[in-house]
Structure formats: structure tokens, C-alpha cells
């Protein structure tokens, strides 16, 4: 009980610590203390500070990038937890309902044929469209069950993946390169404007999930049981899926498709503090932010190039699951 509390506090504080470390690591060397003093100056705008390259690098380049990574990490981890709860399966990820394929198509369409629009808008629109489609296909006689919903997610993913291929095939090689790079997932395009947009949309979508998080415990026991215990499962599921879709769409449109985070982080947190969603939801937020900031710092500094962070998460994700399997899947899946 006590170790769980300490672990919880460490996890909650982790994004601040790794965020600070991420700010002073980089191609241009800046000391940890200098980073702190620049940050303090940055949030007290009334004290005039002389402009310097260090100030620009920290406040205009690295800080928005670290914040964006943190926000996207929060979005992907919390939606992972939410989907795993409502689909009663610890191996479900935030892209289960075809959102990533939809967003990928939106991006491809945007790069290929609507160059005047920012990629993010079309990615957002088609990400949501994919989930709405999956949801309406799964709906028979006004009822929506778990399995048809997962199946229609697979169908929608396959469909949009094929559509992306068509676009890729048709556009010229220069544009093809843009599409491929975007799909790998990266925070290299982070700006303050993007940080604000993501922060606002994410807050709107996370408030209901956070407030209703205890109900995920009840819903994960199954539809009939949850209903018998007084939960309006249909209504709650729509709220959870709607809010999650919004969060994932904004994350995907900001940074492309970054896999495995929504699976790995909830798993790790569940192993440390247990499955109760009252703790799992907030700690996954913190853990997701910290994880993503670390992954992006590695992506940015591992080589002389800015590697897409999606590659880093995939490289860590695969061995992580092999380790889980070998370690005794039954334990960690909770069976």
C-alpha cells in the first residue's frame, strides 16, 4: 500500500523532471541551471530579459516541442486506458476503431491534393470520420456490442489503408516523401500555436474521462453487469468513445501516428499501481507524458538526424511485449 503511494508520487512528478532534462539536452549545449533561469524568466514576462540564442532555443524551439510531446503522450495513454476498459481487453490500443488509418488518409489527401490546407485539419476530420463510420457499421437494431465494434474498426482500417495506398500511388515522389514522413510520427513541427490548440482540445476531451474514470471499473465487468449495477452503459460508452476520439484525433493530427504508447504506458502503470481506474487514469496521464518526452529526446539526439519518434516507440514497444509474454503473460494481462 505504502510503496504504491510512493510509486504514484514518483510517476506524477516524472514529466516535470524528464521535461527539464529534455530541455538541456540537445545539439546546442545549455547548462541545466541556465535552463531553469530561462524558464523562470519566460513565465514572468514583466522582467525584461536580453534576447539571446539560448533563450530562443529553449523558449521557442525546445519548450514547445517538449510540451507537445507531453500532451500527445497524455492523449495516447489515457485513450489507451479508456479503450482497454470499455472493450475489456488490456491489448486494445487507441487506434482500435480505425482512427489512425482515417487520419493517415486525411493527411495523404491533404498533401496530395489540397496543399493550401494544413495537414492537421484533414487528418483530424478523417480520423473522426473513421470512428463514426466504424461505430455506425457496428450498430445493428440500435444495439452496439463490443465485438462488432472491434471488427468494424478492422474493416475501416483496411479500407482507409487501401485509400492511402491509392493516393501514394498517384502523387508525385516529392509529395510522397512528405506523406511517408508524416505517417512515421514526429514532433519536429512543434510550434506554440500547435501546443495551444492541442492543449485546449485535449482539456475538453479529458475532463469527462477524468471525472467518469471510476465508472470504467464497473463497465469493464461487462455490459450486463454494469447495467445491473445501475450504469447506463450505452450512454457512458458513447461519451468515453467520443471524448477519446477527439483526444486521439488531435494528437494524431499534431504529430502523425505514434504507435505502442497507448499499449505500453497503461500496461506499465497497471503493473505498478494496479487496475483501479481512479489511480490508473491520472497516473497514465503523467506516465504517458514522461514516456513520450523521453522517447522524443532520444529521437532528437540519438543521431545527427531528427529521427521520427514513432520509430523509437515501435522499437521499444516490440521487445517490451516480448518481455511481457516471456515473463508470464497471464500475470500482466491480469488473468
Amino acid at each position, binding site marked *: 500500500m505504502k510503496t504504491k503511494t510512493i510509486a504514484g508520487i514518483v510517476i506524477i512528478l516524472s514529466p516535470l523532471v524528464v521535461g527539464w532534462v529534455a530541455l538541456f539536452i540537445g545539439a546546442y549545449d545549455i547548462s541545466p541551471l541556465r535552463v531553469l533561469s530561462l524558464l523562470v524568466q519566460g513565465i514572468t514576462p514583466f522582467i525584461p530579459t536580453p534576447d539571446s540564442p539560448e533563450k530562443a532555443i529553449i523558449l521557442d524551439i525546445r519548450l514547445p516541442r517538449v510540451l507537445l510531446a507531453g500532451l500527445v503522450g497524455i492523449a495516447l495513454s489515457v485513450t489507451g486506458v479508456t479503450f482497454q476498459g470499455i472493450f*475489456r481487453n488490456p491489448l486494445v490500443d487507441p487506434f482500435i476503431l480505425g482512427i489512425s488509418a482515417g487520419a493517415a488518409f486525411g493527411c495523404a489527401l491533404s498533401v496530395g491534393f489540397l496543399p493550401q490546407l494544413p495537414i492537421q485539419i484533414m487528418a483530424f476530420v478523417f480520423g473522426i470520420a473513421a470512428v463514426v463510420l466504424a461505430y455506425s457499421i457496428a450498430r445493428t437494431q440500435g444495439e452496439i456490442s463490443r465485438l462488432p465494434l472491434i471488427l468494424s474498426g478492422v474493416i475501416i482500417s483496411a479500407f482507409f489503408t487501401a485509400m492511402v495506398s491509392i493516393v501514394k500511388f498517384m502523387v508525385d515522389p516529392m509529395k510522397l516523401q512528405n506523406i511517408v514522413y508524416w505517417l512515421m510520427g514526429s514532433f519536429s513541427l512543434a510550434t506554440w500555436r500547435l501546443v495551444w490548440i492541442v492543449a485546449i482540445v485535449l482539456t475538453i476531451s479529458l475532463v469527462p474521462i477524468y471525472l467518469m474514470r*471510476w465508472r470504467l471499473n464497473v463497465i469493464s465487468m461487462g455490459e450486463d*453487469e454494469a447495467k445491473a449495477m445501475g450504469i447506463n452503459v450505452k450512454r457512458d460508452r458513447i461519451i468515453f468513445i467520443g471524448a477519446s476520439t477527439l483526444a486521439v484525433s488531435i494528437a494524431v493530427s499534431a504529430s502523425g501516428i505514434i504507435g505502442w504508447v497507448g499499449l505500453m504506458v497503461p500496461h506499465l502503470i497497471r503493473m505498478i499501481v494496479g487496475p483501479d481506474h481512479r489511480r490508473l487514469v491520472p497516473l497514465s496521464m503523467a506516465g504517458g507524458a514522461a514516456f513520450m518526452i523521453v522517447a522524443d529526446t532520444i529521437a532528437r539526439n540519438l543521431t545527427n538526424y531528427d529521427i521520427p519518434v514513432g520509430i523509437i516507440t515501435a522499437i521499444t514497444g516490440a521487445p517490451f511485449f516480448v518481455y511481457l509474454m516471456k515473463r508470464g503473460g497471464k500475470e500482466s*494481462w491480469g488473468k
Partner: protein
Amino acid sequence: MLRIDNLSFKHTGSASEVISGFTFSAEAGAITTILGPNGSGKTTLFRCIAGLWKPQRGNVSFRKSDMTRLSAHERARLLAVVPQDHEPPFPYSVFDIVLMGRAGHVAMFSAPSEHDISAAHAAIVSVGIEHLSERPYTKISGGERQLVLIARALAQETPILILDEPTSHLDFRNQIIVLEKVRSIVTEKGLTALMTLHDPNLALLFSHQVVLINEGHLIASGKPQQVVTAEHLQAMYGIPVTVVRNNGTGFICPQVTSTVGQYTND
């Protein structure tokens, strides 16, 4: 008093009714057992009363008010369901599971209050499983899990308790322990309890009233000794049985063509 009146149900698109014209009532402080073979409509009847399926005709009323039109939230304050033993996808602690029973009392955008937590504690104490409270639900025995589910239903603080084959996955000893516990809680708290069972002997031992169901129809209802008779059981299950008396209680013995004992005794 829980009253089932002319209850009938058929699946959408199906012509025949799974249960038809069911009428009986269950008293407070007593266990009413629904007994019947597989496929007799027992589960359908159970699900209609639990509010999981909507009957086409008839209704379920409690203290003279109709229950079929209630929302899930309203119904959960009147009626608690003890499902069959199962494994949840996540290893929640026993306490977390029991606390879920408070869902009908917790508002949509909030978590359980101190009052909910003490109600869950009280339910755990009344079933006598305090020692399991912090254990993962997935790591305890089937009998213990059934007791946890009963505690969860009690945490719901409803006047009606319905149990779906509470002994189906349990060994001989645990069947008796669980049913004794149910009976003492029901009489002590004055609950209206309804349960489905497979074993006619358990029905004889633990119920105040028995309702027999076969092919979607009510065969008989009343005091266990008057209803669970050789005649009725033979008609329902299609196998010959005899009733043996022991200490004033009847026991049902199936007549088997040749028992193993005849060969191994000498």
C-alpha cells in the same frame, strides 16, 4: 412483495414465446427458487426480472409499483443481481469489486464517497470475507468469488436480491457454504430473494418457495416439499426419480439403471 404478473417474452423476429404467462410472487425475508431444466426459459425469466431484457407482455412490480419502465440507475437501487462466477479482464482487488456495487448511488461525474466506501466495508463484513479485502479477485477460489459477488450485491443496498445459479461452478462444500450464507443474510435483512438453481435437492434445502418452470411455462409454485415432488420432476426432466425421507426432509434420488456400487461392493 415482488410480483411477476403474466410475464411473456419472445426474441425479436421469433414467432414463439420463450416464456409465456408467468405469474407468481416472492415474499420479503424469503428465498424463492426457480427450478427447471436447461432450455426451460429459466434464464430468460431471470433476465426479464433483472431488467436486462424487456418483456413484450406482463410486468414485474415491487410494492405495487411497475419495475419494467425504470432506468438502469433507478432499478439498481431496488434490485441487485448476483451473476455467475466469472473472471474480469483486470485483477481488481476484492474491495474494488464490492465497491462497484455502489454505482447506482454514485453520480455520473463523481467517484465513490466516504459513505459508499463504508457501505462496501459493511457488505464485506456481513458476508464474512474481510480477510480477502485486499486480495486480487482473480487469485481467490470460485467459492470466495461467489461470496464477493454477493457482498457486491449487498453493497447496492437494495430490497431485492436475485442470484443466477450461485452454485453452478462450486464444489459440494462451497455450494452449502454459499447457500447457507445467502439464507442467513436474506432472513436477517428481510430481503426479497429470487434465485435460479439446477439441483432440486439444494432447492429443497434452501428455499422458502419453489417455482417450477418447463418449456417456458410455470408448472407449479409453492412450498418446496409440496412442489418438488417425484411426479413433477419426472415430468420436467423425463427421468425416473424417487423421494427419500431423512429427518423429515425429502431428498430426490434419480433411479439409475444400474449403479456402479453393485459391481464394486464385493
